[in-house]
């Protein structure tokens, strides 16, 4: 089957082929769900927000400006829907969303993760979930969803410089822990 672009699918949906929205859902559901699971720390909330995000996207498709990338536009809906849920549930996570100067507390999980990780790769991946929320989001959007730093800054409503700082700090923190545990031998 021909691989349709997002824009081609959206044009088809706007012509009245509502069932074609399944192609968009299939394309984005897993990556968006991964992001939401990490943001909300709860599977049911993540599923609810994901459903809500897709329905909002469907209702607003006619307003989607096709000079923008659909993925950026859609992730912005997902991100804002998740923030609304977090705010409504008055979770403490809200505090963590306010600044890029969050303290890196991954060190306190280090012993536990280090003792269970089988190699450097597994160790790094387990630490990602312990990053401050904004850092984790930038990292996931960059590596899992393949968004550029510029697109991530649009999704999160932060400046490009701050987005870059968030990604670099995450990498540096993970790298420092790798060096602390002398993973060099495995790496070289």
């Amino acid at each position, binding site marked *: 089957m021909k691989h349709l672009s997002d824009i081609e699918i959206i044009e088809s949906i706007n012509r*009245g*082929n*509502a*069932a074609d*929205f*399944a192609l968009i*859902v*299939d394309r984005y*559901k*897993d*990556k*968006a*769900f*991964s992001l939401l*699971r990490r943001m909300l720390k709860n*599977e049911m909330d993540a*599923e609810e927000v*994901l*459903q809500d995000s*897709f*329905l909002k996207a*469907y*209702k607003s498709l006619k307003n989607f400006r096709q000079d923008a990338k659909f993925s950026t536009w859609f992730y912005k809906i997902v991100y804002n829907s998740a923030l609304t849920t977090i705010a409504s549930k008055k979770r403490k996570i809200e505090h963590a969303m306010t600044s890029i100067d969050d303290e890196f507390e991954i060190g306190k999980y280090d012993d536990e993760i280090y003792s269970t990780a089988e190699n*450097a*790769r597994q160790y*790094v*991946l387990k630490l*990602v979930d312990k990053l401050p929320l904004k850092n984790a989001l930038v*990292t*996931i959007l*960059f*590596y*899992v969803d393949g968004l550029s730093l510029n697109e991530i800054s649009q999704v999160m409503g932060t400046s490009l410089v701050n987005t870059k700082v968030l*990604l*670099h700090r995450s*990498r*540096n923190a*993970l*790298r420092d822990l*790798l*060096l602390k545990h002398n*993973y*060099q031998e495995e*790496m*070289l």
Partner: protein
Amino acid sequence: MKKISDEFLNDYIDNQLDSNSIIEVAEALKVDSNVLNRLTALKKVDSSLHDIEVIPAPEGFTNRIIKLVIAQSKIIIPRVSYFFISVVSVLVVGVLLVSAVAFVTAEKSQKQADKISFLKDGTQYLNEIMSSFHLFLSNDNILKIGLFLTIILLISGYFFLESHKNFRNKLNKFPTT
């Protein structure tokens, strides 16, 4: 030698440095083991992060969304078929045109009949009406309009069947569970 910062190394692995900066990093790597260690570890982090697990959405998620979307579409968007509206309009105009031509032709025939004789019996009158009707049917314009309407009917019938076939295919493709 210029100190190689963490930001510099991050830009290096993201291919964001210009050629001069890349040369600076390469030279630092030759002489400074600390830079080498930092860069190697950073590359390991970068390659590991490419393997972040994608958590699959719950099973049946797409079907649930599509059912909701279809339900919304039925409520919100009543689809208008502009094709059928156009066909019906052309047919109505055609029928009105035929009626007008028939009326004019019949009137002319009647006047001609009146000139020939005023004293016609019922049978003759009926014959004249029949001949008017025959005249009406043998009119070239009427034949052309009739032909035109027949073609429109055949074309619209073809598009109607195609549209029905497409709709049936779409229904068959649509997931039922």
